[in-house]
């Protein structure tokens, strides 16, 4: 599972840097789980943790690297008390989306690959 997470994080990172699409946090866990997941829990775990971790790390990075003003303004726009909540919200969205996609991928795998 650890390698799965590492693989997903790296794959998503590269695809995110090369393209502007947000949905790699769903596509990568889905495909990974479709090919590799042993069960639904693993599909969820790999998807949610890798996606959540990546977006959490990236949000923190951009927040510190010149994103202070925009984070404060967006937090104000969403009526959040602090930009940190916005970082957590970003991570949570990826966590849920990645987890759901991972679960879906692994569930399909379980239908197709009968042991």
């Amino acid at each position, binding site marked *: 599972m650890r390698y799965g997470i590492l693989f997903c994080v790296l794959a998503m990172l590269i695809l995110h840097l090369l393209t*502007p699409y947000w949905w790699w946090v769903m596509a990568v866990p889905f495909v990974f789980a479709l090919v590799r997941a042993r069960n639904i829990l693993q599909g969820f775990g790999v998807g949610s943790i890798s996606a959540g971790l990546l977006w959490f790390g990236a*949000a923190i990075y951009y927040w510190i690297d010149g994103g202070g003003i925009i984070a404060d*303004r967006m937090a*104000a726009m969403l009526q959040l008390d602090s930009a940190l909540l916005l970082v957590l919200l970003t991570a949570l969205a990826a966590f849920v*989306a990645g987890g759901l996609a991972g679960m879906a991928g692994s569930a399909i795998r379980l239908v197709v690959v009968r042991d």
Partner: protein
Amino acid sequence: MRVLLALLLVIVSLAAFWGLHYAHGVFPPVGRLINPFGGFWQNGENADHFSARLDVPGLRDSVTIIYDDRRVPHIFARNDHDLYFAQGYVTARDRLWQMQLTAFSSAGRLAEITGRSMRAYDRFHRRLGLAYAAEITVREIMADSVAGPVVRAYADGVNAYIEGLDRRHYPLEYKLLNHSPESWTPLNAALLLKQMAWGLTGYNLNDLDITLLEHHLGKEETERLYPDFPPYTRPIIPEGTTWPFEAVQPKPRSSARNSDVLQQRGDNEHVETALGSNNWAVAGSKTDGGYPILCNDPHLGLDLPNVWYEIQLSAPGVNVYGVTMPGAPGVVIGFNDSIAWGVTNAETDVIDWYLVEYQDSTRSVYRYGDGWRPTTRRVEAIKVRGKPIFYDTVTYTHYGPVVYETGHPPLDPDIPQGAAMRWTGHDPSNELRALLGLNRARNYDEYRAALVDFSCPGQNFAFASRSGDIAITHSGAFPILRRGQGRTLCNGGDSTNEWQGIIPPKHLPHSKNPRRGYVSSANQFPVDGNYPYYLSGNHASFTRCKRINDVLDTMTGVTENDMAKLQLDVFSLEADMLLPKLLPLLEGADLGEIEREALKLVQTWDKNYRASAIAPTVFERWWEVLRDTIWADDMLGESGQLRRPRSDICLNLILSEPNSRYFDDNRTEAVEDLAMMAVGAFKSACSLLQSERGEIDDSWQWGLVQGTDIQHLASIPGLNRNHLFTDGRYGLINATSRHVGPSWRMVVSLGPELKASGIYPGGQSGNPGSRYYDNAIDDWVDGRMYPLHMMASPNDTMGFRAITVKMSGGRP
């Protein structure tokens, strides 16, 4: 079971994708927006960074751009094409979304972005014929050998920027509102000009109201209460100026048929607006250094990003600094190596309304003279996001479009139904050519020559030159009219109601080096009775122009600092004239505790509208309630409440006709007088304030009661700067109010060493994640200005921290 589970999870996943990927009502596509690699996180301060070298296909030679410490670009190009190409490029870099939004607004295309909510607004702009006017103007521009190539180069520069723009670096608003940049066209520049033209000529219409008032009050009383020449005004052109030319004489009217418009409602809620501006130029004979000083502060709607973008443009044959309209090439207000100029709105009426009589409901012909004339039609297709296209047919007569047909309630209550609009904005014109000419003008003659092309919106162009001249011109295309013509709606079938030409540019009101040593304007009536042409409009009241002239009359040895201080002047002539009359009326009145306290504050007040003062809050409300009390019973027409006389008229009545019948409430048996009204108004003003703000304390401070809100153009929460603690009020030299105020302040001293300062409330960057988004606002509130660096060459950085960007075409 497994299949079912898989199906369920796939459906839930797809639902999550759907929820995050698409916009839902007012909510933007969340997934795209919060993606740290492509969403708003990418709109941080890093977007401010510049690369030292930029390859931009389309440039003919290399261009050097120096960004100074306030992110003002100083562009040094080797030819005109590259100069305006680079202007387009750097402006788009900082203001792309604003440019596009303004063009969309003018064209009536906002519903493409927002959906149904802006459809009525779009329809209004379409029916006004703004896009129609822009199409005429862009043909004129592109056929012109001066303005055409400039507009083309600017558009190419904007598009070069858009082409190199990665989706993840789209301005934040595109991500929030879920749209993408559209390539920039010369038509957009014309649309911006028309948006400005309508904004500055269409906001103060009163023809419909005057028509209704004449029915109610009679012609004579209407002229007394709604005069062309407002009381106490000191006109722009010094009184007594004579006009050594033969004026074009208008032909008389053939019939006197009145039009029946009584079933229409006027604009009974009309509020006096703070739109307007000041400019003045003081001759060297009055200044400390012996050189002319020119000042300008246009009062416009205050938004983020600001309406202006600051720039220096330098190429062989031109070196100019000032503020530009994002989307249009050249400098609008500024100075070059030889001259400086500034503008205020002319406010002379250039819109008239002709009631149209159609032959039948097909609207295919309308009565004109002894016969009928065919109409033309323009079908407007309004795209509405998420909805089918909305089609609207507008009928055009030879006067112009029928903005609202009879029975169609107008969006703007000043616009009459069933009337065609005659507007100079619909005529072919080339204002950009005028601005480009001013940018390069070296003396008075070149300044006057450039202005010939400036038709609409008419402006008072103040001028000063390093060679020592000062001047002002009430410039624009103004119709030749009979005395009184166009004050009311006219019968469109009567050909003698037509405009009788345009006042020749040489005959326009102007003043050069007047003996008093200064020229000035504050949107007031331009001339005294000697001027041979009839001008009308809804010109600003005396309060700013008289104060400016009164102060300048007494000044000698003027410094730049004195001028900057005068721009911040918040002394109220209204209060100064009214209080000696009104305060004695309160003597002996039975006042409560709060009222006595409030009265004391007003009695000891220096009549300055400072943010921290309480007296202006009391006086303001008192004066407002008093006007309400005076007019509540007098202006009830057959179709309801009519437009009330302006506050300068009311002030004049109080001072010169204290026993006027208007001071009696004609709905009561008793006979009231001014004293009773003044006491009653004071008491109710105090009790209103008390119920809103409690006992008298700091919460009554003027800066909290009025204050200024500078909002993002789309009023997006989090991107606004609200509750600014500002001095000022409309009608004062520092005409800062809640949403309108000095959008740019500039003082230029034209000595051997050119010294200029300026500020606008905002920042150069339109990116809310940049520290240059609103960096100047606090200094603007505090009344500070920045030195403007007119660089002689790219190496002349005058000690500020500069960033140099070299742009080249990428190919030899």
